């Protein structure tokens, strides 16, 4: 049956996301919150996250374009962003955030730039994967 096939695919995909370190325990927390009252809760939260994180990324870009770079402010903004990532369990993205913050503390502009690129990449990759995943689950 299609349903069960999708179910299996969704389950596999989900497992992969965890195994490959894209998601962490927080994602499970979200899943547990999902119920009849909010059947698409996880997807909704992820949507909210991506909407808001786009804004935050823009802020970081603006801050990084300044000269000289205000590392403290940058660290602050990234801190906020990291907090948000922790909400959906975006593990890899969170890792990049931490790395970025380390470079901020070291006032290493180049390190920050590199990490930021990496961060944006992970951020985008996760978005795609999750979108695919949700699509699958909707078909179950």
């Amino acid at each position, binding site marked *: 049956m299609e349903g069960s096939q999708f179910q299996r695919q969704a389950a596999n995909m989900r497992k992969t996301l965890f195994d490959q370190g894209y998601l962490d325990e*927080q994602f499970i*927390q979200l899943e547990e*919150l999902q119920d009849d009252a909010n059947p698409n809760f996880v997807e909704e*939260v992820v949507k*909210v996250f991506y909407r*808001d994180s786009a804004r935050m990324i823009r802020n970081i870009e603006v801050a990084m374009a300044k000269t000289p770079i205000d590392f403290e402010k940058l660290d602050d903004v990234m*801190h906020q962003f*990291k*907090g948000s990532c922790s*909400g959906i369990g975006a593990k890899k993205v969170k890792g990049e955030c931490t790395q970025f913050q380390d470079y901020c503390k070291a006032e290493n502009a180049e390190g920050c730039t590199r990490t930021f690129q990496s961060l944006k990449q992970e951020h985008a990759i996760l978005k795609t994967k999750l979108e695919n995943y949700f699509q699958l689950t909707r078909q179950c």
Partner: protein
Amino acid sequence: MMMTMENNNGFSSPRSDAFPAGLRVLVVDDDPTWLKILEKMLKKCSYEVTTCGLAREALNLLRERKDGFDIVISDVNMPDMDGFKLLEHVGLEMDLPVIMMSVDGETSRVMKGVQHGACDYLLKPIRMKELRNIWQHVLRKRIHEVRDIEFHEGIDEIYMTRNGSDKSEDRHLPSGTDPISGKKRKDVDNKHDDRECNDPSSVKKVRVVWAVDLHQKFVKAVNQIGFDKVGPKKILDLMGVPWLTRENVASHLQKYRLYLGRLQKEKELTASFGGMKQSDITSKEPNGNHCLQNSVNKQCDLTSGNHGTQGNKTILQNVDFKMHEGDMKCIAPMPMAEPKKAMNGDNSDPQKSSNKKMGVNHSFGQLGSDLQYATTVPKQYSWNEECSETQMNRECKPHFRPKSVFNALPLTTLPQNIQLDYIRPRLPLNSRPSSLERDNKLAEADMMPAYMKSRSQGIGQLSPAECKADRFPVQPGSKSTNVQGLKSIPSAVWSMNNHSLDQILGGCSESEDTSLNMTCGTEFASWDGNLQCGSLQGDFQPLNVGPETVESFNYGNPELTSEVPTFSYDSLKFDFEYPFDSMEYPVIDQGLFIT
């Protein structure tokens, strides 16, 4: 940003029967992701959730819906206002428990939260199980409030008894309610609400919401009186708000002091803690006694800081207490407890006012009022700008009377030793049986404030001898020595804990050797000393208390007779140490009275 309301009418009242279900929570976070998550989590806990994305919005909402919320959860980093500021406002104006959240779990930040009065500090990512139990903060606060009410009522009762006039507006004889259950016998603010609930979880004292204009009147009155002389009654009189009670003012005053003290402390955070002006005080006084006295007074004034999270009203209770002509002489040799800013504030003010009220002439009165709370924090005396060392000194000096002797009071500086010498007037013991309960409550109440009610356990040492002047500015000497010198001082060791009211009741009654352990606030070491129920206040001696009892309060007072029940201080454990800068700040409030 967004504000969503769970219930249609928006002004729901708590479903007391289903507590904690229906707990009305206000969540404040600028992160929409977390706002959504928290909302869902809280809803799953069967709470009524309102979300808010901006701090100012949250404040407006809180002000609009007075009594519309039970607890506030807020993120520390808000774009429009510092989360800590919001925390303070909520504490000052609404007196609601506030939980802070942050991604940052650094100790310093957490400490700051606690210092600002947060009742808890959660780290993101937050698990649902952490939110399930937030109702405990609400309940705890209510229980403390009830105790405060009872305390006040007890004081009023005594006051009325003594003076034959009912000075309290809405006082009711305290009944022997179980403090543990937090049964609310009478709503102090009964003007606003006559609800009475038997269910502690549903106990809901009508809160006075300190709106901006009301607060302004308050501040105006405070400034008019002079911060160092301020006391709830004076403020109340000046404010001229008919429906406001002294308790309301007292509790607000406590918070205000906390707030100001915090401001002050922040300025001086870098100063060494050892910089207590104790030496100043000491030098000004013939002996450290006055300091003790002051601290005692302060003790009385001190209410549990609640601080933290919830500013206790106990401190203010103390103040009120003092106003009662020393019926309850709270002789708590409490060094200015700096950490508990509230204390300081309270100390300075109530002390003064109480002194005046209590017949300063009395040695005991002196004691109370002159007690200086030595705080380890440099600025300990001044919780707010107005409070200054001089103030403390002032307090020490003027009120120092040779008679009252806390001479021997060891004024060592113990960061968080709080010794509360609470001397209960014997009166209750002798008068009527029912008064015992009151007394106990009173004692409890006294103790509570002094011991920082916020702590559930606290031991108040009520003997002057036991005053560990750890924080005493007067003498940073060894506490133990001094204490021992106070042998003749009868002391009531009150270690009151939530469950020991009955104990207290039993213990208080005419038993000199009863070891009442009133654990007020967790910070108090347990005193093994004997509990003497008796009032040692000069003029306020209960009928049964003979002069010797009175004398006992005079630590080193030559006037002390040896008939004072001997208190074996040796057994007292004075070493109740508080980390000065511990994170239990709010809680510390109670425990900061170190004498």
